[in-house]
């Protein structure tokens, strides 16, 4: 009790805490509660039929599969980018380092139209791919490309500080004990980076799951081929099928909240690793 009193020397607890709770309640919690109330107006069998319809199942599969692929691509390249940015010096390094955050700052619609223009048949990159017999835009590959773009910063930015803080004496010790450089990287560096790499992967995956703006242009939005879950929700809303939209939204929201839990576990693991 004495401890609490001492902490309450500063004023403003009632004001700031009350304001925070009221604001969150009005802007975040009441709207979210509406979603679950709306779902409860469906019977269980209605809910189940909606969320397991063939079109919805395809949309989850595409969204989850493409998000995972994009997160994997970003894990591999993000690790290389983080390593190069931390360990090597080359011209333009500082600018590239700053540019890594671009997907956080660039509006998704802008990313969407420029990726679509680049990869469309006849576009700068789309033309090249077409000659190689690969269709990127208006195909599932386009969805993956857009997700790689929006989730690019996560792995780089979670791995980078860990690499920068890595004690190089351990690497030196490993080298002086006769380990080849490759063995040192694999046995010494990689294990200490792994928790942050997995955290970055999970963050990237979670970001891609809900992505909409950068994907709608390049994907072409064909049901059963390139239609992601977010778009299916929007389509249902525009048909005024609010119950259908809500049911699919609850599934996706459940997935996102599950990812929060996974990310929390991974983060506490990487913090433990740091100590």
């Amino acid at each position: 009790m004495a401890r609490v009193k001492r902490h309450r020397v500063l004023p403003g607890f009632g004001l700031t805490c009350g304001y925070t709770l009221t604001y969150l309640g009005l802007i975040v919690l009441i709207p979210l509660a509406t979603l679950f109330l709306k779902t409860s107006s469906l019977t269980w069998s209605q809910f189940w039929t909606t969320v397991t319809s063939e079109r919805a199942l395809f949309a989850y599969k595409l969204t989850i599969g493409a998000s995972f692929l994009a997160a994997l691509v970003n894990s591999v390249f993000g690790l290389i980018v983080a390593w190069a940015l931390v360990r090597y010096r080359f011209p333009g390094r500082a600018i590239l380092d700053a540019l890594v955050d671009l997907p956080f700052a660039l509006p998704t619609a802008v990313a969407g139209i420029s990726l679509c223009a680049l990869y469309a048949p006849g576009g700068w990159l789309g033309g090249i791919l077409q000659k190689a017999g690969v269709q990127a835009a208006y195909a599932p590959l386009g969805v993956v490309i857009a997700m790689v773009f929006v989730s690019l910063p996560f792995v780089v930015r979670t791995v980078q500080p860990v690499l920068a803080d890595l004690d190089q004496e351990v690497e030196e010790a490993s080298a002086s004990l006769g380990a080849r450089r490759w063995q040192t990287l694999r046995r010494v560096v990689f294990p200490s980076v792994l928790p942050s790499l997995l955290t970055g992967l999970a963050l990237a995956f979670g970001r891609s799951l809900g992505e909409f703006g950068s994907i709608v242009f390049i994907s072409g939005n064909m049901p059963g081929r390139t239609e992601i879950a977010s778009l299916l929700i929007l389509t249902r809303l525009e048909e005024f099928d609010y119950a259908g939209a809500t049911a699919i939204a609850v599934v996706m929201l459940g997935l996102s909240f599950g990812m929060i839990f996974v990310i929390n576990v991974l983060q506490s693991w990487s913090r433990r690793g740091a100590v």
Partner: protein
Amino acid sequence: MAGAAGQFGGTNKAGGRVGTRDPLWMRWSLTIVAVGFLALMLVLPLVIVFATAFSKGWAGFAAAIAESESWSAIKLTLLAAAVSVPLNIVFGVAAAWAISKFEFRGKDLLITVIDLPFSVSPIIAGMLFVLLFGAQGWLGPWLAARDIKIIFAVPGIVLATVFVTVPFVARELIPLMQSQGREEEEAALSLGASGWQAFFRVTIPNIKWGLIYGVILCNARALGEFGAVSVVSGHIQGVTNTMPLQIEILYNEYKFVPAFAMASLLVLMALLTLVVKHGIEWRAARSHAQIVDETVGAAATA
């Protein structure tokens, strides 16, 4: 330690000691892969925006921006940001004050709730407000009877923007203020300052850079939000179209030059955001280095 480093041949330019240096072929190939990946994924999309926006010269660019629908989209976007950014600044500062200066139960839960809008897909965020205020929503009939329009109108766009930008300022300030503790404010109070004086003279100068950091990220998201706004807007040209929505319409009508001209304005905003963000980080790193230098210097003289 100096002796050991000397034994291994000292440090190279990259800061890595010889025992920790990658072979030349590896440095070259990894650098090429990293630069190539970033150029392909980040630089090329920016280049195509400007290349298309100016493909018909300055005149084409200016004509595209000067269209009345483009102008009203720009104004609406600025309005949405002008409402949501200040609201979330006040919220962020209040939440960070409560969380960092006091101990109470459920703090972790509160932090999780603040972060929730980041985990809600933008489409779902927009949908929440349709379910609440739309024609078939909970408050729809009540609002219709009083002739108040929220969905497919400007208030809906502002609300959706506020929702998606809730966490930005708070999540920058909370860890910062937690690390600063409460001693400085307590000292100010014991010297006779009022609570507000302590806040404005002590807290605000301490958190100013973190606050600016949060504000520019919040602003970038407010100006660029697409999914959530798209659901509540109804796409009425000249009335409820924000810049990203106008870009979508222009692009889908194959009006590429005007679409990319609008997009180039948002790209400039994004690049400016990165410049400010990096400037703040550079400043923080420098002052940190200064503190370390001073501590080391003091330790040496002691």
